[in-house]
């Protein structure tokens, strides 16, 4: 049985995101002026199987996928 998990990694809210700001500026140049904030994160799509899958996803989320000094993460696990 194959499992899927998504790990969403975001910069912590108190950290400035200059990339997000640059993207926001682009949105404004395109005329989308009701948008007032954009922050950029990452999504990791993970597949695997076995009883250890969920634990391993939690482990790599905190030890590899996110840098805990500057990032928070969220795990969403789905069963096929």
């Amino acid at each position: 049985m194959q499992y899927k998990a998504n790990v969403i990694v975001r910069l912590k809210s108190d950290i400035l995101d200059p990339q997000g700001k640059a993207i926001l500026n682009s949105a404004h140049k395109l005329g989308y002026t009701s948008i007032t904030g954009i922050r950029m994160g990452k999504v990791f799509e993970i597949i695997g199987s076995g009883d250890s899958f969920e634990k391993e996803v939690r482990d790599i989320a905190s030890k590899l996928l996110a840098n805990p000094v500057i990032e928070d993460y969220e795990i969403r696990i789905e069963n096929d």
Partner: protein
Amino acid sequence: MIKVGVVVFPGSNCDEDVYYVMSSIMGFETKYVWHRDTYIEDLDLIVLPGGFSYGDYLRCGAISSHSIIMEAIKQHINRGRYVIGICNGFQILTEAALLPGALTMNMSTRFICDNVYLSVENINTFVSNQYSEKSAIMMPIAHKDGRYIANEDTIKKLEDNQQIVFRYSNSNGDIEADYNPNGSLHNIAGIINEKGNVIGLMPHPERCVEGVFTGKDGLHFFESIAKWVGD
């Protein structure tokens, strides 16, 4: 005779410059250390050079920080030996939590290749003892992810313990936001650990040791090592 190891990761590209300075200019016994080595002999100093190890995939220095060689480097540090992380090397050290904080994208979102001034804040370290206190030196930077950040407690601790070795400044040594190329908190360009044997800095001292380059302000960096580690 000071023994130096320059670690090479896939994508490191400043290893040869560091090797050249250490061996040809300083006369240290220098060798390359491969990232997959599990054992490093009794070296005095390990350098993690600049570059784009693992293509900066995931985060700069993130994948390198889990390399096989890192365990041996941690033991080297525990033995009280010395480590210098330059640019990508500094990123690797923070990712491995061997130095506090993190390096993030420059506020401008641009890669900056430029000469900057640094104020030498602490001359009581193995890389800065040959400089005058609060002297302003010129060193090149070349990075996109050099903005140093850490939480309030960490910054306070670094300040209180005088762990900030270099700060971005102007040619007078004034430390202000205008002279900060990347938005690093408190204009931090280089920090040392509490024990004083691990330093990380974003600028490239190995690129300014001979008159043919921008300047020679980097030479004292290496002469400091000769004085401190050699004694």
